[in-house]
């Protein structure tokens, strides 16, 4: 049953991701991206990461994709032909990455490593229980993420927030052209 659900989500994700780049109408591309976000969130739910699923929808589907749509509608592009002449380069890059993925998958299956660093952390929190059975029911998924983020991964977390702060300041500088001048912005 779980495998069936996984393959449903994975299949739809692959299909809609292809449609995002293959469709000519940018609005349809954005809509298939929306369907893809929902299925990624569905995958998170099957992995018992409800918090990540909700954040996935709030951030990507609720904010970022709306901005995409906003720009597409503002420019009023009905059909985009310019970006469909890069097939050779795209195919070359795609093939390279596909080979890489297959090689990595082969190595992983032969080496039998643990899948993700986060699952390791979750494992230690649930006292040696396997990840598939989920985190101990007393501690919710959200609490686990919070604990891990502010203890094990504190440094990467702070670095990420610093990068975001730099990006934000950069965007403000770019938008406000005469920041030190006298003219009105």
């Amino acid at each position, binding site marked *: 049953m779980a495998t069936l659900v996984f393959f449903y989500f994975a299949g739809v994700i692959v299909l809609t991701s292809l449609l995002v780049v293959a469709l000519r109408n940018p*609005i349809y591309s954005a*809509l298939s991206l*929306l369907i893809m976000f929902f299925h990624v969130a569905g995958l998170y739910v099957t992995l018992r990461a*409800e*918090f990540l699923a*909700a*954040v996935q*929808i*709030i951030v990507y*589907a*609720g*904010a970022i994709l*709306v*901005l995409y*749509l*906003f720009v597409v*509608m*503002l420019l*009023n592009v009905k059909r985009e032909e310019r970006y469909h002449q890069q097939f050779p380069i795209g195919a070359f890059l795609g093939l390279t990455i596909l080979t890489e993925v297959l090689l990595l998958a082969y190595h992983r299956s032969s080496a039998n490593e643990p899948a993700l660093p986060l699952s390791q952390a979750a494992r230690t929190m649930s006292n040696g229980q396997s990840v598939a059975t989920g985190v101990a029911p007393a501690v*919710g*998924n*959200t609490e686990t993420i919070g604990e891990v983020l502010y203890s094990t991964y504190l440094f990467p977390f702070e670095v990420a927030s610093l990068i975001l702060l730099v990006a934000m300041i950069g965007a403000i500088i770019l938008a406000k052209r005469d920041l030190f001048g006298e003219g009105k912005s």
Partner: protein
Amino acid sequence: MVEVGIKIGLSITQIAVVMGVVLLTVMFLTLAERKVIGWMQDRMGPMEVGPYGILQPIADGLKLFFKEDIVPAGANKFLFSLAPILALVPALIGFAVIPFGPNLTVEIFGVQFQPFVISDINIGILYILAFTSIGAYGVILGGWASNSKYSLLGGLRAAAQVISYELNVGLAIVGVILLAGSLSLVKITEAQSGWFWNWFIFAPPFPQLFAFVVYVISSVAETNRMPFDLPEAESELVAGFFTEYSGMRFAFFFLAEYANMILVSCIAATLFLGGWNAPAPFLQFHGSWANLAWASGVFWFTVKVYFFLFLFFWLRATLPRLRYDQLMRFGWKVMLPIALGNILITAIAAYLFPRG
């Protein structure tokens, strides 16, 4: 196998009851809004259909049902049909996690069953935020697919407005989550039991009064209601994003707007005003009547929700519409700093004086 069947049956019954109540409330609200605004403006409101016009919603419904369904020339048919559904479904789906009454568990045919909440998931409030943000797609796509400049402008305004004010809604809620220590709406309500000063709007260590004001204003903006109804400003854009819609498709947008109003009122009542908790312990059934406590719980929840719904009408009758740049400046330069400051102070207060 039988157990699963009973579970599914109970869930479907529950969903049907909640949807029925929501849709009936919408029907009632359409009349109540016209009556309340009429009285505020010293008019009578609708008076023709039935005694005192109380059958007006039925007449409106029949009219919408039999109206010709028009798809404008040059419109994108697929998206034009999809948009009203995309607007309505997220508005209704949010009610799945709202606790309408006390957190009871009864056993029916050997199946555990919570009668007053369809599904108490541990990320309840995030679930609602996720789906309310999806509602914007219906408005944006409806505006785009209509192939009309008024609709397109309305859709664009809706996109900008929803993104700006959703942020404030999310940040205003964080203070409550900090104090409650949970994302589940049932647990958040249970953390506010007892007297009314335990409600998060008044609660120690730091009352969420500022968050409450930010939440209410932002939710009015998010539901595209007066004075933030720029996506459908009739004096500028005819009717905004649903200019080209008629008949049942228009009714879907209409239902979505009112269902969203009820939803944000339910969230405000749950998060800030204690949900089903009575203002004082003696104002609910207790002692020998204790097994009827659920009735008073549902009553208090309804009272709080209707308070917010009345607030929506009151604002609409009182305030003029904002200009677009005022709307953006207000959202980003006034509401956002207040919400952020509230989080900072609440976090410090919750650290220094942890709740027992």
